[in-house]
Protein backbone atom coordinates (compact mmCIF):
# COMPACT_ATOMS: atom_id res chain seq x y z
CA UNK A 1 0.00 0.00 0.00
CA UNK A 2 1.20 3.46 -0.83
CA UNK A 3 2.19 5.36 2.27
CA UNK A 4 0.28 8.43 1.10
CA UNK A 5 -3.01 6.53 0.92
CA UNK A 6 -2.63 4.98 4.36
CA UNK A 7 -4.78 6.25 7.15
CA UNK A 8 -3.18 8.65 9.56
CA UNK A 9 -2.55 7.35 13.03
CA UNK A 10 -5.41 7.91 15.38
CA UNK A 11 -6.00 7.50 19.06
CA UNK A 12 -9.61 6.44 18.47
CA UNK A 13 -10.62 2.79 18.96
CA UNK A 14 -13.90 3.20 17.04
CA UNK A 15 -13.71 1.57 13.62
CA UNK A 16 -15.31 4.48 11.85
CA UNK A 17 -13.02 4.95 8.88
CA UNK A 18 -14.20 3.74 5.46
CA UNK A 19 -11.40 1.19 5.10
CA UNK A 20 -12.20 -0.51 8.40
CA UNK A 21 -15.92 -0.48 7.61
CA UNK A 22 -15.33 -1.96 4.16
CA UNK A 23 -13.24 -4.79 5.57
CA UNK A 24 -15.80 -5.54 8.24
CA UNK A 25 -18.58 -5.53 5.66
CA UNK A 26 -16.64 -8.00 3.48
CA UNK A 27 -16.17 -10.20 6.53
CA UNK A 28 -19.89 -10.13 7.32
CA UNK A 29 -20.82 -10.91 3.71
CA UNK A 30 -18.38 -13.83 3.65
CA UNK A 31 -19.85 -15.18 6.90
CA UNK A 32 -23.38 -15.02 5.53
CA UNK A 33 -22.46 -16.58 2.16
CA UNK A 34 -20.54 -19.44 3.78
CA UNK A 35 -23.37 -20.00 6.24
CA UNK A 36 -25.90 -20.21 3.41
CA UNK A 37 -23.74 -22.68 1.48
CA UNK A 38 -23.25 -24.93 4.50
CA UNK A 39 -26.88 -24.80 5.57
CA UNK A 40 -28.18 -25.48 2.07
CA UNK A 41 -26.19 -28.71 1.97
CA UNK A 42 -27.49 -29.75 5.37
CA UNK A 43 -31.03 -28.75 4.38
CA UNK A 44 -30.82 -30.69 1.13
CA UNK A 45 -29.61 -33.75 2.99
CA UNK A 46 -32.36 -33.41 5.60
CA UNK A 47 -35.04 -32.97 2.92
CA UNK A 48 -33.76 -36.01 1.07
CA UNK A 49 -33.87 -38.16 4.20
CA UNK A 50 -37.31 -36.90 5.20
CA UNK A 51 -38.62 -37.56 1.70
CA UNK A 52 -37.24 -41.08 1.71
CA UNK A 53 -38.90 -41.75 5.04
CA UNK A 54 -42.12 -40.24 3.72
CA UNK A 55 -42.08 -42.53 0.69
CA UNK A 56 -40.77 -45.68 2.30
CA UNK A 57 -41.64 -45.75 5.99
CA UNK A 58 -45.12 -47.22 5.53
CA UNK A 59 -43.66 -50.27 3.73
CA UNK A 60 -41.21 -51.18 6.45
CA UNK A 61 -43.26 -54.06 7.81
CA UNK A 62 -41.75 -57.25 9.19
CA UNK A 63 -43.03 -59.15 6.13
CA UNK A 64 -41.12 -56.75 3.88
CA UNK A 65 -37.91 -56.61 5.88
CA UNK A 66 -37.71 -60.32 6.62
CA UNK A 67 -39.85 -61.74 3.80
CA UNK A 68 -38.81 -63.58 0.68
CA UNK A 69 -38.66 -61.74 -2.64
CA UNK A 70 -41.43 -62.46 -5.16
CA UNK A 71 -40.70 -63.05 -8.84
CA UNK A 72 -44.05 -62.22 -10.38
CA UNK A 73 -46.61 -61.40 -7.72
CA UNK A 74 -47.05 -58.49 -5.33
CA UNK A 75 -46.00 -58.56 -1.67
CA UNK A 76 -42.39 -59.69 -2.00
CA UNK A 77 -39.88 -58.92 0.78
CA UNK A 78 -36.17 -58.19 0.83
CA UNK A 79 -34.90 -60.35 3.72
CA UNK A 80 -32.33 -62.35 1.77
CA UNK A 81 -31.19 -59.20 -0.08
CA UNK A 82 -30.40 -57.46 3.21
CA UNK A 83 -28.53 -60.57 4.32
CA UNK A 84 -26.61 -60.69 1.03
CA UNK A 85 -25.64 -57.03 1.27
CA UNK A 86 -24.01 -57.63 4.66
CA UNK A 87 -22.58 -60.98 3.55
CA UNK A 88 -20.88 -59.48 0.49
CA UNK A 89 -19.77 -56.43 2.48
CA UNK A 90 -18.09 -58.59 5.11
CA UNK A 91 -16.56 -60.89 2.52
CA UNK A 92 -15.22 -57.87 0.65
CA UNK A 93 -13.78 -56.29 3.79
CA UNK A 94 -12.11 -59.59 4.71
CA UNK A 95 -10.21 -59.40 1.41
CA UNK A 96 -9.78 -55.64 1.18
CA UNK A 97 -8.74 -54.55 4.65
CA UNK A 98 -5.73 -56.85 5.20
CA UNK A 99 -4.36 -56.41 1.68
CA UNK A 100 -4.80 -52.65 1.55
CA UNK A 101 -3.42 -52.24 5.07
CA UNK A 102 -0.36 -54.33 4.24
CA UNK A 103 0.19 -52.46 0.98
CA UNK A 104 -0.26 -49.08 2.67
CA UNK A 105 2.16 -50.06 5.44
CA UNK A 106 4.74 -51.20 2.93
CA UNK A 107 4.45 -48.03 0.88
CA UNK A 108 4.55 -45.60 3.79
CA UNK A 109 6.80 -47.37 6.28
CA UNK A 110 9.15 -49.55 4.26
CA UNK A 111 9.44 -48.33 0.66
CA UNK A 112 12.05 -45.60 0.31
CA UNK A 113 10.52 -42.33 -0.85
CA UNK A 114 11.09 -41.73 -4.54
CA UNK A 115 10.14 -42.94 -8.01
CA UNK A 116 8.75 -46.32 -7.05
CA UNK A 117 6.50 -44.93 -4.35
CA UNK A 118 5.23 -42.16 -6.61
CA UNK A 119 4.55 -44.66 -9.38
CA UNK A 120 2.50 -46.92 -7.10
CA UNK A 121 0.55 -43.96 -5.72
CA UNK A 122 -0.13 -42.69 -9.22
CA UNK A 123 -1.27 -46.15 -10.39
CA UNK A 124 -3.50 -46.57 -7.34
CA UNK A 125 -5.13 -43.22 -7.92
CA UNK A 126 -5.71 -44.05 -11.58
CA UNK A 127 -7.14 -47.46 -10.71
CA UNK A 128 -9.45 -45.87 -8.15
CA UNK A 129 -11.18 -43.93 -10.92
CA UNK A 130 -12.09 -46.98 -13.04
CA UNK A 131 -15.90 -47.04 -13.44
CA UNK A 132 -17.47 -49.87 -11.52
CA UNK A 133 -19.25 -51.20 -14.64
CA UNK A 134 -15.83 -51.81 -16.22
CA UNK A 135 -14.73 -53.67 -13.09
CA UNK A 136 -18.02 -55.61 -13.26
CA UNK A 137 -17.32 -56.75 -16.82
CA UNK A 138 -13.77 -57.68 -15.82
CA UNK A 139 -15.21 -59.73 -12.95
CA UNK A 140 -17.61 -61.40 -15.39
CA UNK A 141 -14.74 -62.46 -17.64
CA UNK A 142 -12.46 -63.64 -14.85
CA UNK A 143 -14.64 -65.05 -12.07
CA UNK A 144 -17.74 -66.10 -13.97
CA UNK A 145 -16.25 -67.37 -17.25
CA UNK A 146 -12.57 -68.09 -16.65
CA UNK A 147 -12.88 -69.57 -13.15
CA UNK A 148 -16.32 -70.98 -14.06
CA UNK A 149 -17.78 -69.90 -10.73
CA UNK A 150 -20.92 -68.54 -12.43
CA UNK A 151 -22.71 -65.85 -10.45
CA UNK A 152 -21.43 -66.03 -6.88
CA UNK A 153 -21.07 -64.01 -3.72
CA UNK A 154 -17.32 -64.52 -3.79
CA UNK A 155 -17.03 -63.36 -7.41
CA UNK A 156 -18.94 -60.24 -6.44
CA UNK A 157 -16.85 -59.69 -3.35
CA UNK A 158 -13.58 -60.11 -5.26
CA UNK A 159 -14.78 -57.67 -7.92
CA UNK A 160 -15.61 -55.17 -5.20
CA UNK A 161 -12.21 -55.85 -3.66
CA UNK A 162 -10.49 -54.91 -6.92
CA UNK A 163 -12.69 -51.85 -7.11
CA UNK A 164 -11.91 -50.63 -3.59
CA UNK A 165 -8.35 -51.81 -2.93
CA UNK A 166 -6.57 -48.81 -4.44
CA UNK A 167 -8.69 -46.28 -2.57
CA UNK A 168 -8.37 -48.04 0.77
CA UNK A 169 -4.65 -48.46 0.28
CA UNK A 170 -4.32 -44.71 -0.25
CA UNK A 171 -6.48 -44.06 2.82
CA UNK A 172 -4.25 -46.34 4.90
CA UNK A 173 -1.15 -44.67 3.55
CA UNK A 174 -2.46 -41.20 4.38
CA UNK A 175 -3.51 -42.39 7.85
CA UNK A 176 0.02 -43.67 8.49
CA UNK A 177 1.51 -40.48 7.09
CA UNK A 178 -0.41 -38.51 9.71
CA UNK A 179 1.30 -40.41 12.54
CA UNK A 180 4.13 -38.16 13.80
CA UNK A 181 7.67 -39.33 13.10
CA UNK A 182 8.52 -38.66 16.74
CA UNK A 183 6.62 -41.85 17.67
CA UNK A 184 8.72 -43.86 15.25
CA UNK A 185 11.93 -42.28 16.54
CA UNK A 186 10.98 -42.96 20.15
CA UNK A 187 10.16 -46.58 19.43
CA UNK A 188 13.16 -47.35 17.25
CA UNK A 189 15.42 -45.31 19.55
CA UNK A 190 14.65 -47.90 22.22
CA UNK A 191 15.69 -50.78 20.03
CA UNK A 192 12.35 -51.74 18.51
CA UNK A 193 12.48 -53.13 14.99
CA UNK A 194 10.54 -51.41 12.25
CA UNK A 195 7.89 -54.13 12.35
CA UNK A 196 7.45 -53.82 16.14
CA UNK A 197 7.15 -50.07 15.70
CA UNK A 198 4.51 -50.40 12.98
CA UNK A 199 2.53 -52.98 14.91
CA UNK A 200 2.66 -51.42 18.39
CA UNK A 201 2.79 -47.69 17.74
CA UNK A 202 2.06 -46.61 14.18
CA UNK A 203 -0.99 -48.72 13.35
CA UNK A 204 -2.76 -48.14 16.70
CA UNK A 205 -2.27 -44.40 16.24
CA UNK A 206 -3.76 -44.57 12.74
CA UNK A 207 -6.82 -46.66 13.63
CA UNK A 208 -9.17 -43.67 13.77
CA UNK A 209 -8.47 -42.47 10.24
CA UNK A 210 -8.43 -46.01 8.91
CA UNK A 211 -11.88 -46.60 10.38
CA UNK A 212 -13.17 -43.55 8.54
CA UNK A 213 -11.76 -44.96 5.31
CA UNK A 214 -13.43 -48.32 5.88
CA UNK A 215 -16.76 -46.64 6.62
CA UNK A 216 -16.61 -44.71 3.34
CA UNK A 217 -15.73 -47.87 1.40
CA UNK A 218 -18.55 -49.76 3.14
CA UNK A 219 -21.05 -47.12 2.04
CA UNK A 220 -19.89 -47.58 -1.53
CA UNK A 221 -20.14 -51.35 -1.28
CA UNK A 222 -23.69 -51.21 0.11
CA UNK A 223 -24.73 -48.98 -2.76
CA UNK A 224 -22.80 -50.74 -5.52
CA UNK A 225 -24.80 -52.23 -8.38
CA UNK A 226 -22.89 -52.16 -11.67
CA UNK A 227 -20.00 -54.25 -10.39
CA UNK A 228 -22.35 -56.87 -8.93
CA UNK A 229 -24.96 -57.32 -11.67
CA UNK A 230 -22.60 -59.43 -13.78
CA UNK A 231 -20.74 -61.11 -10.94
CA UNK A 232 -22.98 -61.83 -7.94
CA UNK A 233 -26.15 -62.18 -9.96
CA UNK A 234 -29.72 -60.98 -9.96
CA UNK A 235 -31.31 -63.57 -7.74
CA UNK A 236 -30.87 -64.93 -4.26
CA UNK A 237 -29.44 -68.40 -3.74
CA UNK A 238 -31.72 -71.23 -4.77
CA UNK A 239 -30.39 -73.60 -2.12
CA UNK A 240 -30.99 -71.37 0.85
CA UNK A 241 -31.98 -67.70 0.77
CA UNK A 242 -29.67 -67.14 3.76
CA UNK A 243 -26.85 -69.05 2.14
CA UNK A 244 -23.39 -69.18 3.72
CA UNK A 245 -21.80 -70.78 0.68
CA UNK A 246 -19.87 -68.02 -1.11
CA UNK A 247 -20.09 -69.85 -4.42
CA UNK A 248 -23.84 -69.37 -4.78
CA UNK A 249 -25.58 -66.36 -6.30
CA UNK A 250 -26.20 -63.48 -3.95
CA UNK A 251 -28.33 -60.53 -5.03
CA UNK A 252 -27.79 -57.52 -2.79
CA UNK A 253 -30.39 -54.96 -1.84
CA UNK A 254 -28.99 -52.25 -4.11
CA UNK A 255 -28.98 -54.67 -7.05
CA UNK A 256 -32.53 -55.74 -6.18
CA UNK A 257 -33.58 -52.11 -6.17
CA UNK A 258 -32.13 -51.62 -9.64
CA UNK A 259 -33.52 -54.92 -10.89
CA UNK A 260 -37.11 -54.40 -9.78
CA UNK A 261 -37.14 -50.98 -11.37
CA UNK A 262 -35.76 -52.08 -14.73
CA UNK A 263 -36.33 -55.76 -15.42
CA UNK A 264 -38.91 -57.14 -13.07
CA UNK A 265 -42.57 -57.78 -13.75
CA UNK A 266 -43.88 -57.50 -10.20
CA UNK A 267 -46.84 -55.08 -9.89
CA UNK A 268 -45.67 -53.35 -6.68
CA UNK A 269 -42.41 -51.90 -8.01
CA UNK A 270 -42.83 -48.60 -6.15
CA UNK A 271 -43.41 -50.32 -2.84
CA UNK A 272 -40.26 -52.44 -3.21
CA UNK A 273 -38.25 -49.54 -4.59
CA UNK A 274 -39.15 -47.01 -1.90
CA UNK A 275 -38.93 -49.56 0.88
CA UNK A 276 -35.56 -50.87 -0.30
CA UNK A 277 -34.12 -47.38 -0.67
CA UNK A 278 -35.05 -46.56 2.91
CA UNK A 279 -33.72 -49.86 4.22
CA UNK A 280 -30.46 -49.22 2.35
CA UNK A 281 -30.17 -45.78 3.89
CA UNK A 282 -30.76 -47.14 7.38
CA UNK A 283 -28.24 -49.95 6.79
CA UNK A 284 -25.54 -47.47 5.84
CA UNK A 285 -26.32 -45.41 8.94
CA UNK A 286 -26.24 -48.43 11.20
CA UNK A 287 -22.98 -49.69 9.76
CA UNK A 288 -21.46 -46.24 9.95
CA UNK A 289 -22.36 -45.83 13.61
CA UNK A 290 -21.29 -49.37 14.48
CA UNK A 291 -17.93 -48.95 12.77
CA UNK A 292 -17.28 -45.65 14.51
CA UNK A 293 -18.24 -47.03 17.92
CA UNK A 294 -16.05 -50.06 17.27
CA UNK A 295 -13.19 -47.88 16.04
CA UNK A 296 -13.41 -45.66 19.09
CA UNK A 297 -13.48 -48.61 21.47
CA UNK A 298 -10.45 -50.15 19.75
CA UNK A 299 -8.65 -46.85 19.73
CA UNK A 300 -9.39 -46.32 23.42
CA UNK A 301 -8.09 -49.75 24.24
CA UNK A 302 -4.90 -49.19 22.26
CA UNK A 303 -4.15 -45.60 23.15
CA UNK A 304 -5.81 -44.98 26.52
CA UNK A 305 -8.26 -42.47 25.15
CA UNK A 306 -10.65 -42.12 22.22
CA UNK A 307 -9.44 -40.42 19.08
Amino acid at each position, binding site marked *: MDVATMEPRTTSLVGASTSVRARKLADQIATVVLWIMASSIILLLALFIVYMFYLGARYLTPSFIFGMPAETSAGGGVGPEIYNSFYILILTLIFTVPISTAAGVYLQEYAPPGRFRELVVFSAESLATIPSIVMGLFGLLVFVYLFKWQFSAIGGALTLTLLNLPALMRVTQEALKSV*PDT*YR*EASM*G*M*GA*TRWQTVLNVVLP*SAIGRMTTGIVLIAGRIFGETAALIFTAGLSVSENDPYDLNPFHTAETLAVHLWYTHTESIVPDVDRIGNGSALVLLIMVFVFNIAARVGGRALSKRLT*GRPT
Partner: protein
Amino acid sequence: MIETAAQVATDEKIVATDVNIYYGAFHAIKGANLKMMENSVTALIGPSGCGKSTFLRSLNRMHDLTPGARVTGNILLDGTDIYGADSDPVVIRHRVGMVFQRPNPFPKTIFENVVYGPKIHGESNPARLREICERSLRQAALWEEVKDRLDRSALDLSGGQQQRLCIARVLAVNPEVILMDEPASALDPIATSKIEDLIGDLKSDYTVVIVTHSMQQAARISDRTAFFHLGEIVEVGTTNQIFTKPREKRTEDYITGRFG
Protein backbone atom coordinates in the same frame (compact mmCIF):
# COMPACT_ATOMS: atom_id res chain seq x y z
CA MET B 1 35.97 -48.32 47.24
CA ILE B 2 36.88 -44.71 46.61
CA GLU B 3 39.61 -45.80 44.29
CA THR B 4 37.32 -48.00 42.23
CA ALA B 5 34.76 -45.23 41.96
CA ALA B 6 37.43 -42.87 40.72
CA GLN B 7 38.62 -45.55 38.36
CA VAL B 8 35.13 -46.03 36.91
CA ALA B 9 34.69 -42.33 36.35
CA THR B 10 37.69 -42.23 34.04
CA ASP B 11 36.73 -45.26 31.97
CA GLU B 12 35.97 -44.47 28.37
CA LYS B 13 32.44 -45.58 27.54
CA ILE B 14 32.15 -44.21 24.01
CA VAL B 15 35.08 -43.18 21.88
CA ALA B 16 34.36 -41.38 18.62
CA THR B 17 37.29 -41.12 16.23
CA ASP B 18 37.37 -39.08 13.02
CA VAL B 19 33.59 -39.08 12.64
CA ASN B 20 32.20 -37.49 9.49
CA ILE B 21 28.49 -37.18 8.87
CA TYR B 22 26.91 -36.22 5.58
CA TYR B 23 23.34 -35.39 4.63
CA GLY B 24 23.50 -36.02 0.90
CA ALA B 25 26.23 -33.66 -0.27
CA PHE B 26 26.18 -31.56 2.93
CA HIS B 27 29.12 -32.27 5.22
CA ALA B 28 27.51 -31.78 8.65
CA ILE B 29 30.23 -33.13 10.97
CA LYS B 30 33.87 -32.84 10.01
CA GLY B 31 36.34 -35.23 11.60
CA ALA B 32 35.00 -35.18 15.15
CA ASN B 33 36.95 -36.86 17.96
CA LEU B 34 35.37 -37.22 21.38
CA LYS B 35 35.66 -39.51 24.39
CA MET B 36 32.65 -39.90 26.65
CA MET B 37 33.43 -41.22 30.12
CA GLU B 38 31.46 -43.82 32.00
CA ASN B 39 29.20 -42.56 34.81
CA SER B 40 29.63 -38.96 33.85
CA VAL B 41 27.68 -36.31 32.01
CA THR B 42 29.15 -35.02 28.77
CA ALA B 43 27.56 -31.83 27.43
CA LEU B 44 27.64 -30.90 23.74
CA ILE B 45 27.26 -27.15 23.31
CA GLY B 46 27.44 -24.76 20.39
CA PRO B 47 25.35 -22.36 18.33
CA SER B 48 22.30 -23.55 16.38
CA GLY B 49 23.20 -25.60 13.34
CA CYS B 50 26.69 -26.44 14.62
CA GLY B 51 26.04 -30.16 14.34
CA LYS B 52 25.80 -31.11 18.01
CA SER B 53 22.46 -32.92 17.62
CA THR B 54 23.67 -34.53 14.41
CA PHE B 55 26.70 -35.87 16.26
CA LEU B 56 24.56 -37.08 19.19
CA ARG B 57 22.26 -39.02 16.88
CA SER B 58 25.22 -40.87 15.39
CA LEU B 59 25.97 -42.40 18.81
CA ASN B 60 23.07 -44.87 18.57
CA ARG B 61 22.77 -45.00 14.81
CA MET B 62 19.61 -42.92 14.57
CA HIS B 63 20.91 -41.65 11.23
CA ASP B 64 20.13 -45.09 9.81
CA LEU B 65 16.52 -43.90 9.79
CA THR B 66 17.24 -40.74 7.79
CA PRO B 67 17.38 -41.35 4.05
CA GLY B 68 20.52 -39.79 2.57
CA ALA B 69 22.45 -39.57 5.85
CA ARG B 70 25.91 -41.18 5.94
CA VAL B 71 28.36 -41.67 8.81
CA THR B 72 32.06 -42.52 8.46
CA GLY B 73 34.76 -43.02 11.07
CA ASN B 74 34.76 -45.08 14.25
CA ILE B 75 32.45 -44.94 17.24
CA LEU B 76 33.46 -47.48 19.85
CA LEU B 77 31.05 -48.53 22.57
CA ASP B 78 33.10 -50.40 25.21
CA GLY B 79 35.70 -50.94 22.53
CA THR B 80 33.40 -52.30 19.78
CA ASP B 81 32.62 -50.26 16.69
CA ILE B 82 28.88 -49.60 16.56
CA TYR B 83 29.17 -49.10 12.80
CA GLY B 84 31.03 -52.40 12.44
CA ALA B 85 29.71 -55.08 10.10
CA ASP B 86 28.44 -57.24 12.98
CA SER B 87 26.82 -54.43 14.95
CA ASP B 88 23.04 -54.49 15.02
CA PRO B 89 21.32 -51.11 15.45
CA VAL B 90 18.51 -52.81 17.40
CA VAL B 91 21.00 -54.04 20.02
CA ILE B 92 22.92 -50.77 20.04
CA ARG B 93 19.76 -48.75 20.68
CA HIS B 94 18.88 -51.12 23.51
CA ARG B 95 22.20 -50.25 25.15
CA VAL B 96 22.23 -46.61 24.12
CA GLY B 97 18.84 -44.99 24.73
CA MET B 98 17.68 -41.58 23.59
CA VAL B 99 15.53 -38.78 24.99
CA PHE B 100 14.35 -36.28 22.42
CA GLN B 101 13.96 -32.53 22.33
CA ARG B 102 10.18 -32.51 22.42
CA PRO B 103 8.50 -34.92 24.85
CA ASN B 104 7.21 -37.70 22.60
CA PRO B 105 5.17 -40.13 24.69
CA PHE B 106 3.17 -42.66 22.69
CA PRO B 107 -0.60 -42.15 22.56
CA LYS B 108 -0.95 -44.94 25.10
CA THR B 109 -1.47 -45.13 28.83
CA ILE B 110 1.29 -44.08 31.20
CA PHE B 111 1.87 -47.71 32.12
CA GLU B 112 2.04 -48.85 28.48
CA ASN B 113 4.52 -46.10 27.71
CA VAL B 114 6.94 -47.17 30.42
CA VAL B 115 6.75 -50.89 29.73
CA TYR B 116 6.90 -50.48 25.95
CA GLY B 117 10.65 -51.10 25.80
CA PRO B 118 10.72 -54.14 28.11
CA LYS B 119 7.79 -55.60 26.16
CA ILE B 120 9.43 -55.28 22.77
CA HIS B 121 12.56 -56.83 24.23
CA GLY B 122 10.55 -59.86 25.29
CA GLU B 123 9.39 -59.26 28.88
CA SER B 124 5.77 -60.36 29.24
CA ASN B 125 5.37 -61.25 32.91
CA PRO B 126 2.77 -58.76 34.25
CA ALA B 127 4.29 -58.68 37.75
CA ARG B 128 7.75 -58.01 36.34
CA LEU B 129 6.35 -55.27 34.08
CA ARG B 130 4.60 -53.56 37.00
CA GLU B 131 7.83 -53.73 38.98
CA ILE B 132 9.83 -52.22 36.08
CA CYS B 133 7.18 -49.54 35.67
CA GLU B 134 7.37 -48.47 39.30
CA ARG B 135 11.16 -48.60 39.47
CA SER B 136 11.57 -46.56 36.27
CA LEU B 137 8.99 -43.96 37.27
CA ARG B 138 10.64 -43.61 40.69
CA GLN B 139 14.05 -43.18 39.04
CA ALA B 140 12.57 -40.49 36.82
CA ALA B 141 11.01 -38.77 39.88
CA LEU B 142 7.53 -39.13 38.46
CA TRP B 143 6.08 -42.02 40.47
CA GLU B 144 4.42 -39.95 43.20
CA GLU B 145 2.66 -37.77 40.63
CA VAL B 146 1.23 -40.55 38.47
CA LYS B 147 0.98 -43.68 40.63
CA ASP B 148 -2.82 -43.36 40.86
CA ARG B 149 -3.41 -42.87 37.17
CA LEU B 150 -1.15 -45.29 35.37
CA ASP B 151 -4.05 -46.32 33.15
CA ARG B 152 -4.65 -42.78 31.91
CA SER B 153 -3.33 -41.49 28.60
CA ALA B 154 0.20 -40.16 28.75
CA LEU B 155 -0.91 -37.30 26.53
CA ASP B 156 -2.90 -35.85 29.46
CA LEU B 157 0.32 -35.16 31.40
CA SER B 158 2.00 -31.74 31.41
CA GLY B 159 5.01 -31.17 29.18
CA GLY B 160 7.49 -31.58 32.03
CA GLN B 161 5.80 -34.75 33.23
CA GLN B 162 5.76 -36.10 29.69
CA GLN B 163 9.50 -35.55 29.38
CA ARG B 164 10.16 -37.33 32.69
CA LEU B 165 7.90 -40.12 31.41
CA CYS B 166 10.05 -40.34 28.29
CA ILE B 167 13.13 -40.61 30.51
CA ALA B 168 11.40 -43.33 32.56
CA ARG B 169 10.56 -45.10 29.31
CA VAL B 170 14.23 -45.13 28.33
CA LEU B 171 15.33 -46.21 31.82
CA ALA B 172 12.89 -49.13 31.68
CA VAL B 173 14.99 -50.89 29.05
CA ASN B 174 18.01 -50.51 31.34
CA PRO B 175 20.42 -48.92 28.89
CA GLU B 176 24.08 -48.17 29.64
CA VAL B 177 24.16 -44.80 27.92
CA ILE B 178 21.42 -42.17 27.71
CA LEU B 179 21.57 -39.60 24.93
CA MET B 180 19.56 -36.44 25.51
CA ASP B 181 18.83 -33.98 22.73
CA GLU B 182 17.99 -30.66 24.43
CA PRO B 183 15.61 -32.47 26.77
CA ALA B 184 14.50 -29.32 28.59
CA SER B 185 14.31 -26.83 25.74
CA ALA B 186 10.52 -27.14 25.43
CA LEU B 187 9.91 -26.93 29.19
CA ASP B 188 9.33 -24.16 31.71
CA PRO B 189 12.01 -23.30 34.33
CA ILE B 190 10.52 -25.46 37.11
CA ALA B 191 10.21 -28.52 34.89
CA THR B 192 13.72 -27.81 33.59
CA SER B 193 15.20 -27.81 37.06
CA LYS B 194 13.50 -31.13 37.81
CA ILE B 195 15.04 -32.64 34.68
CA GLU B 196 18.45 -31.24 35.62
CA ASP B 197 18.24 -32.72 39.12
CA LEU B 198 17.27 -36.00 37.55
CA ILE B 199 20.28 -35.99 35.23
CA GLY B 200 22.52 -35.46 38.26
CA ASP B 201 20.99 -38.55 39.88
CA LEU B 202 21.24 -40.64 36.74
CA LYS B 203 24.96 -40.41 36.30
CA SER B 204 25.69 -42.76 39.18
CA ASP B 205 24.20 -45.58 37.11
CA TYR B 206 24.42 -44.37 33.54
CA THR B 207 26.63 -42.55 31.11
CA VAL B 208 24.84 -39.41 29.94
CA VAL B 209 25.54 -37.39 26.81
CA ILE B 210 23.43 -34.26 26.55
CA VAL B 211 23.02 -31.65 23.85
CA THR B 212 22.04 -28.27 25.22
CA HIS B 213 21.81 -24.76 23.87
CA SER B 214 21.92 -23.40 27.41
CA MET B 215 25.44 -22.80 28.64
CA GLN B 216 24.21 -22.37 32.20
CA GLN B 217 22.65 -25.81 31.97
CA ALA B 218 25.86 -27.34 30.66
CA ALA B 219 27.79 -25.65 33.48
CA ARG B 220 25.33 -26.88 36.11
CA ILE B 221 25.02 -30.52 35.16
CA SER B 222 27.97 -31.73 33.11
CA ASP B 223 31.41 -33.05 34.00
CA ARG B 224 32.91 -32.59 30.57
CA THR B 225 31.93 -30.25 27.78
CA ALA B 226 32.56 -30.31 24.03
CA PHE B 227 32.15 -27.10 22.08
CA PHE B 228 30.89 -27.54 18.50
CA HIS B 229 31.11 -24.91 15.81
CA LEU B 230 30.37 -25.26 12.08
CA GLY B 231 30.47 -29.05 12.22
CA GLU B 232 33.76 -29.29 14.09
CA ILE B 233 34.58 -29.97 17.70
CA VAL B 234 36.55 -26.87 18.58
CA GLU B 235 37.45 -27.76 22.14
CA VAL B 236 36.85 -30.52 24.67
CA GLY B 237 37.67 -30.41 28.35
CA THR B 238 36.30 -30.56 31.85
CA THR B 239 33.29 -28.32 32.14
CA ASN B 240 35.12 -26.21 34.66
CA GLN B 241 38.06 -25.65 32.33
CA ILE B 242 35.87 -24.85 29.29
CA PHE B 243 33.88 -22.26 31.16
CA THR B 244 36.73 -20.67 33.13
CA LYS B 245 39.88 -21.08 31.01
CA PRO B 246 38.91 -21.87 27.42
CA ARG B 247 41.96 -22.46 25.28
CA GLU B 248 40.40 -21.53 21.96
CA LYS B 249 39.36 -18.01 21.00
CA ARG B 250 36.11 -19.29 19.43
CA THR B 251 35.11 -21.10 22.61
CA GLU B 252 35.73 -18.00 24.64
CA ASP B 253 33.73 -15.85 22.24
CA TYR B 254 30.83 -18.27 22.42
CA ILE B 255 30.67 -18.71 26.18
CA THR B 256 31.03 -15.00 26.79
CA GLY B 257 28.08 -14.41 24.48
CA ARG B 258 29.86 -12.76 21.58
CA PHE B 259 28.07 -15.02 19.09
CA GLY B 260 25.55 -17.83 19.05
